[in-house]
């Protein structure tokens, strides 16, 4: 710590801080336009000028000057105020000063400082800027006439997002922010630039002319898309969520969001939301009353084991726990699951046998504390963009080594020093086994590993997985596999990350055990910056596992429930929020199964493809309309409160299950808080938690690890002559099938596509946007072609989110599907 004097106050600050940070830490405000606490100091705006006695009263920028012992700083002398006033005059010289029609008004740093410094006249005259406004994309408007050239947008796009869409172009008075060759903005539209813009140069178009900043009610919440657990501030007016607001102090991610979090909120107030319960009468869904609908549901639930349930892991912990309780105690069925079963098997089977727990023994915060990251599949960026930002920052700012094992290249491969091994699809487990074998052979095993149960067996069983043998089947070089294993073992702290989800069938229990083996063999778990982070797909996927909402004790898992529906063993199927018709493997089979069920009940926000087949449809609530808790992928339990009132005809799933329990003769808990009290008493790691104790940041549920070494089975994928290997996955702009109802994501990525390598495209005479018929043994589907440089030859990729042309018509749940293409 360093002692210094700021405006006659004796203060202390960390040695590494700047004058600006030291002042902020001690409650002294220095005005600034170009600073954000996530970005490196830049010193562009000259608003933070201060005087330092030791520097002979020169005016120096507080944001770039480090503190020194005994420094005497004055932040508001008459000279300083005069200088700042002039800076503002110069900034306003070319600025259009069109505050009445600017959406930033009220939240604009330039406007606020102009007011604070009473700049009511300008001594200078000059022409205003005449830059063309970029209206070319539906999400971000760029008006460079209002720009003060603080560079925050260009810096956040480089330092955190690592996309680099914006930069300073030209020089001198001509300088402006723009894209290459004056192009229109065409990026991943995370809106980070919008969030940090201190003026109205970068605006969220969906929010334009919707409300003045000061008329918005701000409510904290937790994002309802992926498992990262980002915190949100919703801007609300007239009971509508109109925007997401930026708060640089919110959450571990400091307000940083991805395109889904920032622009995907419109589904909450979508006019496609269900407004009343519906019953199928004479073959058509017709509106009914809650009483009638719930009575019919309750009657059909009295079927014991012939009743099954599927729930989306977007429900709260309270709802999932109550749903389970209803199924077990009131219905008398063990048949319930989420995410088709296989999508959570990495946690519920893999980690359970390898780590003795069904949660990841690592947190997102470990990324920055690690020395080396091993990422399985570049898709980790697309599935969890904010975790991707953490990886970007770690690699760029902390020189963390990044190794990637993937079946295609991706954005992460472009990070400085990133080493990507592109292998044949489906050979991950074999490669990870070969890495374990290489670690054993090269005697890089940690001393603690020998005493772990299963060690001797694993050593024996790994004999077949020599890097040379695996190299042949995976398309890698044996030396590369050995080097990858060597660098992982050599790193003092190393973290393995891999995404799971319904699109990643290969990321199952076997893969989880394979990565767990590496961590256990090298002793890289249960330590800061080490471990394995299994990135769960949905916002409460980890919670659904923690609540035990999956097949156990002989109950049927998701896929078996579908089979049982088709076979007639399941007569009533209650689906809460899942959309199996689109997101489960094998469209034809699921459709037949759902059609065969006597009573199909769907509770959802929208009339999804699945809900359209139902006999009873119940309108449910979004995360913004209910109370409860979500557990993020690294087991941070966070509390949400209703941000808006739900519409009169909707009930939260909690209310639906409560009403049904009453009808079935049980006693439901009084409210979500009461249910949470039950959860905290019964769930390992949740002990002692209450809504009060969770606070605004949430609380980590501790993960206790009991390691065991298990040989994971690796299935060999045989490529067929003349076929391409199709891998499916998530695309950056979407999460599950819910984001189809968010306008933002649909503006950027409205439909499915088939990504294909340049060489394959050339061979098959396919160019960008060509409609291509993709055929597998299960069926065929028409997709638009997208020719990219990231796909290896012989491999094609398709995202799975879309109801129009669903990819599950050609995909039956295999990690790799052989397909042929026809134009």
């Amino acid at each position, binding site marked *: 710590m360093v002692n210094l004097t700021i405006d006659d106050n004796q203060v202390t600050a960390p040695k590494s801080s700047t004058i600006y940070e030291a002042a902020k830490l001690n409650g002294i405000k220095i005005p600034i336009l170009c600073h954000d606490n996530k970005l490196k100091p830049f010193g562009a705006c000259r608003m933070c000028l201060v005087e330092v006695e030791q520097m002979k009263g020169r005016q120096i920028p507080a944001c770039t000057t480090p503190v020194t012992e005994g420094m005497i700083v004055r932040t508001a002398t008459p000279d300083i105020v005069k200088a700042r006033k002039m800076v503002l005059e110069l900034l306003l010289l070319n600025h259009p000063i069109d505050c009445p029609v600017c959406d930033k008004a009220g939240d604009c740093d330039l406007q606020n400082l102009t007011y604070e410094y009473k700049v009511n006249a300008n001594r200078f005259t000059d022409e205003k800027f005449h830059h*063309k406004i970029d209206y070319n994309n539906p999400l971000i408007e760029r008006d460079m006439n209002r720009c003060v050239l603080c560079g925050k947008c*260009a810096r956040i796009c*480089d330092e955190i997002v690592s*996309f*680099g*869409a*914006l*930069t*300073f*172009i*030209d*020089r001198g008075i*001509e300088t402006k922010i*723009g*894209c*290459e*060759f*004056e192009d229109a903005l065409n990026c991943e539209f995370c809106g980070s630039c919008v969030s940090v813009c201190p003026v109205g140069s970068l605006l969220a178009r969906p929010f334009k002319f919707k409300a003045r900043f000061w008329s918005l009610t701000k409510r904290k919440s937790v994002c309802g898309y992926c498992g990262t657990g980002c915190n949100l501030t919703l801007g609300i007016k007239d009971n509508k969520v109109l925007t997401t607001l930026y708060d640089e102090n919110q959450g571990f991610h400091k307000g940083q969001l991805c395109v889904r979090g920032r622009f995907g909120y419109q589904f909450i107030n979508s006019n496609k939301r269900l407004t009343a319960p519906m019953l199928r009468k004479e073959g058509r869904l017709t509106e009914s009353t809650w009483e009638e609908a719930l009575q019919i549901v309750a009657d059909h639930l009295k079927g014991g084991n012939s009743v099954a349930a599927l729930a989306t892991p977007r429900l709260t912990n309270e709802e999932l726990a109550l749903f389970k309780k209803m199924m077990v105690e009131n219905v008398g069925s063990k048949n319930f699951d989420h995410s088709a079963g296989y999508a959570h098997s990495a946690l519920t089977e893999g980690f359970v046998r390898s780590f003795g727990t069904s949660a990841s023994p690592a947190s997102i915060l470990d990324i920055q504390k690690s020395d080396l990251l091993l990422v399985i599949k570049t898709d980790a960026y697309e599935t969890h963009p904010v975790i991707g930002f953490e990886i970007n920052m770690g690699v760029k700012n902390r020189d963390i080594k990044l190794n990637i094992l993937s079946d295609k290249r991706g954005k992460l491969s*472009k990070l*400085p020093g990133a080493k990507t091994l592109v292998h044949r699809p489906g050979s991950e487990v074999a490669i990870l086994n070969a890495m374990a074998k290489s670690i054993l052979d090269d005697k890089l095993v940690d001393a603690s590993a020998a005493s772990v149960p299963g060690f001797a067996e694993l050593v024996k069983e790994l004999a077949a997985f020599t890097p040379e043998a695996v190299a042949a089947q995976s398309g890698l070089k044996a030396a590369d596999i050995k080097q990858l294993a060597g660098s992982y073992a050599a790193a003092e702290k190393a973290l393995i990350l891999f995404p799971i989800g319904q699109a990643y069938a290969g990321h199952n229990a076997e893969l989880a055990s394979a990565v767990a083996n590496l961590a256990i063999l090298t002793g890289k778990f249960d330590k800061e910056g080490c471990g394995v982070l299994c990135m769960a797909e949905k916002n409460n996927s980890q919670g659904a596992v923690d609540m035990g909402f999956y097949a156990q004790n002989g109950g049927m898992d998701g896929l078996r429930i579908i089979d049982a529906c088709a076979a007639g063993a399941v007569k009533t199927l209650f689906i809460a929020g899942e959309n199996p018709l689109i997101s489960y493997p094998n469209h034809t089979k699921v459709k037949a199964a759902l059609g065969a069920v006597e009573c199909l009940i769907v509770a959802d926000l929208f009339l999804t493809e699945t809900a359209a087949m139902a006999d009873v449809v119940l309108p449910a609530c979004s995360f913004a309309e209910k109370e409860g808790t979500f557990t993020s992928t690294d087991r941070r339990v966070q509390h949400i409160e209703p941000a808006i009132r739900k519409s009169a005809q909707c009930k939260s799933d909690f209310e639906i299950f409560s009403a049904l329990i009453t009808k079935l003769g049980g006693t439901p808990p009084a409210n979500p808080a009461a249910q949470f009290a039950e959860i905290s008493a019964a769930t390992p790691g949740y002990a002692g938690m209450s809504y009060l104790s969770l606070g605004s940041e949430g609380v980590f549920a501790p993960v206790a690890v009991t390691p065991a070494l298990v040989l994971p089975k690796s299935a060999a994928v045989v490529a067929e002559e003349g076929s391409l290997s199709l891998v499916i996955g998530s695309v950056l702009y979407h999460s599950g099938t819910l984001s189809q109802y968010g306008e933002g994501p649909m503006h950027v990525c409205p439909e499915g596509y088939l990504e294909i390598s340049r060489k394959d495209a050339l061979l098959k005479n396919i160019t960008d946007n060509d409609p291509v018929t993709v055929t597998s043994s299960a069926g065929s589907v028409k997709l638009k072609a997208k020719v990219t*440089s990231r796909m290896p030859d012989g491999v094609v990729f398709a995202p799975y989110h879309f109801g129009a042309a669903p990819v599950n018509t050609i995909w039956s749940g295999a990690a790799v599907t052989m397909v042929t293409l026809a134009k």
Partner: protein
Amino acid sequence: MSDAVAQQTEEQEPVIDLSIADSVIDKYIDIPGNLMPVLQGVQDEYGYIPRMVADHIAERLNVYPSQIYGVLTFYAQFHLKPRGKFIIRVCVGTACHVQGAPRIVETFFDKLHIGHAETSPDLRFTFEKVACLGACGMAPLAMVNDSTYGGMTVQKVDEIISDYSQRPMK
């Protein structure tokens, strides 16, 4: 750099042989801070920096395309559209100005039918006004590529144009 310039480069983009750019990139690929030498080397080969080549450099050097454009527009030495075979530069610095440089400039404009920083449609001439060529003793001064012409007069403008109009383009 105006919108018009960017549009123009896009419109008249001819077929470009990227292997020439590759040979320049290969020379510098492992050197830190290689962007400037690569851009300079590429400009020497093509005479300007075509957009396709800028995008190719971005991909090969793993630099954002926007960042390359930032560098290209910051330095006056880089050109984004094709340049003439003969670059005529007339000094308009103080000494040359006093000695009548404005008339020399006007004469070039009239005879070549192109303005400042413009290129004749046949890609023979590019004309530029420059601040100082560092030979004030020879004012008013003009240069064509590397040849210097001191004590410029209106007659000498004619001579220079007819001389260079007859030279071969290849």
